[in-house]
């Protein structure tokens, strides 16, 4: 049991981070803190993907040493790489198997799977863009309301809504007369 838990330490950490981020995103009243929680949540996803990509004893996926110059055809390389990631990630410790497959392809060194890293590069950009848009909206909220506390904003909106409703009721009364 303990072994089961410890073997997957990275996943526990990721789950923990994810839940913390999610909790902050929902529970914080300060909008900036909400965005921080969101950022934490997204970062935990990046960790999740990169830990999927890990292969035991694997190095950065750039051909070096004897491998360099061996494989010229890009297409093969890619379709090859995507096949291994599956079994590599399915049970975290079976990286050796994948490594053997690599060897069968004629590569000297073991490389980790580059695809999730590339995906996360995109996800990071998306995260940055989200953060920028979110902060921009918060700046505008600050200018319009003078606060970044969600509950104060809600109270102000409620006031406006109530006054609108009452003025509307009056207006419709006037219309009826």
């Amino acid at each position, binding site marked *: 049991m303990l072994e089961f838990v410890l073997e997957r330490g990275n996943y526990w950490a990721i789950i923990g981070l994810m839940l913390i981020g999610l909790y902050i995103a929902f529970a914080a009243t300060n909008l900036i803190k909400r965005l921080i929680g969101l950022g934490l949540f997204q970062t935990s996803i990046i960790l999740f993907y990169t830990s999927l990509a890990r292969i035991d004893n694997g190095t950065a996926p750039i051909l070096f040493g004897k491998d360099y110059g061996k494989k*010229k055809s890009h297409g093969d390389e890619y379709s090859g790489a995507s096949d291994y990631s599956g079994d590599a990630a399915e049970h975290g410790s079976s990286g050796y198997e994948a490594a053997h497959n690599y060897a069968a392809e004629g590569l000297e060194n073991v490389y980790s799977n580059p695809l999730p890293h590339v995906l996360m590069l995109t996800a990071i950009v998306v995260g940055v863009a989200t953060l920028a848009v979110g902060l921009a909206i918060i700046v505008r909220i600050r200018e319009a309301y003078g606060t970044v506390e969600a509950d104060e904003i809600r109270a102000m909106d409620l006031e406006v809504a109530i006054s609108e409703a009452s003025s509307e009721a009056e207006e419709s009364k006037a219309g009826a007369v």
Partner: protein
Amino acid sequence: MKGDHHVILRVVAKALIPIIAMYGFYVHFHGEYSPGGGFQAGVILAVCVILYSLIFGIAPTMRAITPGFERFIGGLGFIIYVGVGFWALAMGGNFLEYDALFREEPGGHAGQHTGIIVIEIGVLFAVAGAMVTIFYAFAGRVSEIRDEDW
């Protein structure tokens, strides 16, 4: 800029900023053989501008590199990227198919090389432009916060 207590910062920044910019270009053009490329280089180049504005103030920075210019660079990078896609289309390949760029024989790699370099330049422009634009968008508003709010 009263007094001299920022003098070390200013001197160090003046020395560092060109080196950072150069490093940015190194990361960009060495991206073919090592980790690096347009994304990272774009951010590093943007950091130059941001660092400059942190130390010398936002107004001189905006005079040197105008927000309009940065926005233009960002859009231009995007257009370059998509443009390569259309270039490949015009040459009879699929969208973004580098092999088709020069209609070369199978086995030729000129298209792959040129394609990825142009694409990375587009990414460099887009990222650098976008990062500085985002920075300007926030930093440029500082004056609108009233004093009593601090």
